[in-house]
């Protein structure tokens, strides 16, 4: 009995550990590591990228002698304080496009977790059969190199001297900037109500702005309130216009009587730089067949813009704002160097969009 029970317990423990080993996908991982098929080779590369095992990932490139290792790493980990430097590869989808037995193309959709939210990147990867396994043929665009130059800085800046915390009512103070919501449109989407529109700073000083929207019942009571969060340019220079968008997930227009809009403005320190030019704006379909507004961003200032954020408002033929979409660009904007962007919009909206207006928000890391 004593041997039987002891052996049974040892055996059962080992069996249970083995079951869990299988369940945790270890076998699958082992299979992928053999890179027997094109998509397994890509999966292996991406799994190594995900775990930041750069040496192993680089060793898996068929053309490693032609690919600069730093350049390869920067493709995933970013540089110049761009959004990629705040991102980590969280997951990926891989599916083969075509293969001729020696060369194959695999499409990947990389899901990054970033400091501003999730970010997807679709990329087609060439794979080559080499020996017993498939290896990745990596193509990286050369990183732009800036010529040494001196760019004079003569930008405008506003500073504000705030009152203290003491309540000194009736004493001279500087009023909040005058801002005005110039348009508002409530749009029903399948899963939500979306309030879109534009706001302008009518004052002669910069304004911090935020737009709140409250859905109201017929009796005027509030149903819920949301704000524009990052779907707005919060700092508006004098006479600058920003699109805004407020989402109400789970609500339908039939549930509400009206919407109360509330534009908050504050006087804040601000700078007139950087100026970003948006060139080559076009509505077109991307590689996945989705309608996007694409173009290039050109930083006309001398400092690097680390994270650009594109906000686009779309108008129908009557000039009414019908949609606002946004997107973060994962590359930094070097001075005078175009960087492409694309923000998507629903197909049904695209068919009504007559024209559009793009505004660029920016994050400049003061420490960089």
């Amino acid at each position, binding site marked *: 009995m004593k041997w039987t029970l002891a052996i049974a317990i040892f055996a059962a423990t080992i069996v249970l550990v083995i079951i869990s080993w299988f369940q945790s996908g270890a076998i699958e991982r082992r299979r992928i590591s053999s890179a027997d098929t094109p998509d397994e080779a890509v999966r292996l590369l991406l799994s190594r990228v995900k775990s930041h095992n750069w040496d192993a990932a680089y060793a898996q490139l068929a053309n490693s002698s032609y690919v600069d290792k730093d350049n390869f790493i920067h493709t995933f980990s970013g540089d110049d304080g761009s959004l990629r430097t705040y991102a980590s590869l969280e997951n990926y989808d891989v599916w083969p496009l075509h293969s001729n037995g020696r060369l194959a193309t695999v499409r990947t959709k990389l899901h990054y977790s970033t400091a501003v939210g999730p970010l997807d990147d679709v990329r087609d990867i060439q794979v080559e059969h080499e020996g017993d396994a498939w290896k990745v043929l990596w193509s990286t665009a050369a990183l732009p190199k800036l010529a040494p130059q001196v760019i004079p800085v003569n930008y405008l800046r506003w500073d504000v001297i705030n009152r203290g915390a003491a309540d000194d009512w009736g004493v*001279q103070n500087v*009023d909040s900037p005058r801002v005005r919501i110039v348009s508002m449109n409530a749009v029903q989407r399948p899963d939500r109500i979306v309030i879109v529109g534009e706001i302008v700073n009518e004052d*002669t000083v910069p304004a911090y702005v935020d737009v709140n929207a409250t859905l109201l019942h017929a009796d005027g009571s509030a149903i819920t309130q949301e704000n524009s969060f990052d779907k707005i340019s919060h700092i508006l220079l004098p*006479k600058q216009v920003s699109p805004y968008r407020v989402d109400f997930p789970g609500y339908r227009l039939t549930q509400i009587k009206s919407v109360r809009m509330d534009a908050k403005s504050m006087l804040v320190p601000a700078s*007139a730089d950087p100026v970003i030019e948006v*060139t080559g704006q076009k509505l077109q379909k991307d590689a996945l067949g989705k309608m996007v507004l694409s173009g290039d961003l050109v930083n006309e200032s001398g400092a690097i813009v680390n994270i650009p954020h594109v906000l686009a408002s779309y108008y129908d033929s009557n000039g009414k704002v019908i949609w606002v979409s946004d997107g973060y660009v994962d590359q930094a904007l070097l001075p005078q160097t175009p960087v492409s962007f694309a923000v998507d919009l629903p197909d049904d909206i695209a068919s009504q969009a007559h024209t559009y207006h*793009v505004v660029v928000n920016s994050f400049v890391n003061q420490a960089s």
Partner: protein
Amino acid sequence: MRTVITWLLCSLAAAMPATAAELHAPKDIAAGTDFSITVNGDSHGTFYLIGPATAEKRSVENGSEISIPGTDIEKAGNYQAILCSDECVSTEFYVHAAEADRLSLLVHPSRVPVATTNAISAVAIALDRFHNIVFSHAQVDFSVNSNNGSSASHAQPTNRGIAWIRLTSAAKASSAKISAAVGDTTETRVVEQVASEACNLHIKSYWEANHLVVQTDPVRDCSGNNVPDGTVVSFTKTDRSGKTTVDAPIKKGIAKAEMPVVGNARISVASGVVLGNELNVGGAR
């Protein structure tokens, strides 16, 4: 029966205090003034004074008056004076504000576009030295002095302590000092009268290297005031390559943007909700 009545009267007389005190206060007292409450009868006991900013308790000895220092009644309003020994007696009195001695002056906005009717408001609240609102009528003298030399004044009586006026901003951008005076006290606020919306926004273009430079004429409002630097002017160019937009701030009176042009291009300009002229430009050089 007589015995019974005599007994009852004796009992009542015994039950009554020897001297039932009564308090008498002046009915109308100015804030911060010393005064006394007259006591008829026995004033020995505990004295309470309850008012808007007061809750005082003290023992008082026999005497015909209870003196109240002005520091106990600095806040205007109704007061309760209570004297308790075996039982409590009380009186009420009202403390009104002292003479108007200071002002709260609310002037809005601190920045106003030029030539805007009734755009500035000034509200003055007359207060005494204890920050009580002076409800009695007082005359507030409003005056406006612009740094370009013009000035105006207007006297306005208070109604329940408040006097107010509205003003139209000047046609020229400048600072305006708005003052209100009551008695010897004057309060001043400054309002910046700033340029209004851009007027007749006009752009021109020229080539520099391979880029087209588009720039505005000096940007002014309809009264000829320079629109402040930092105001955003939006340039939009449409050509074969698509649409290009630049939001450029005005620097030294003009806004400027460089744009690549492919083929023929149409360039427009706007500042806020104000639209300017359009340019049609030929192909790139």
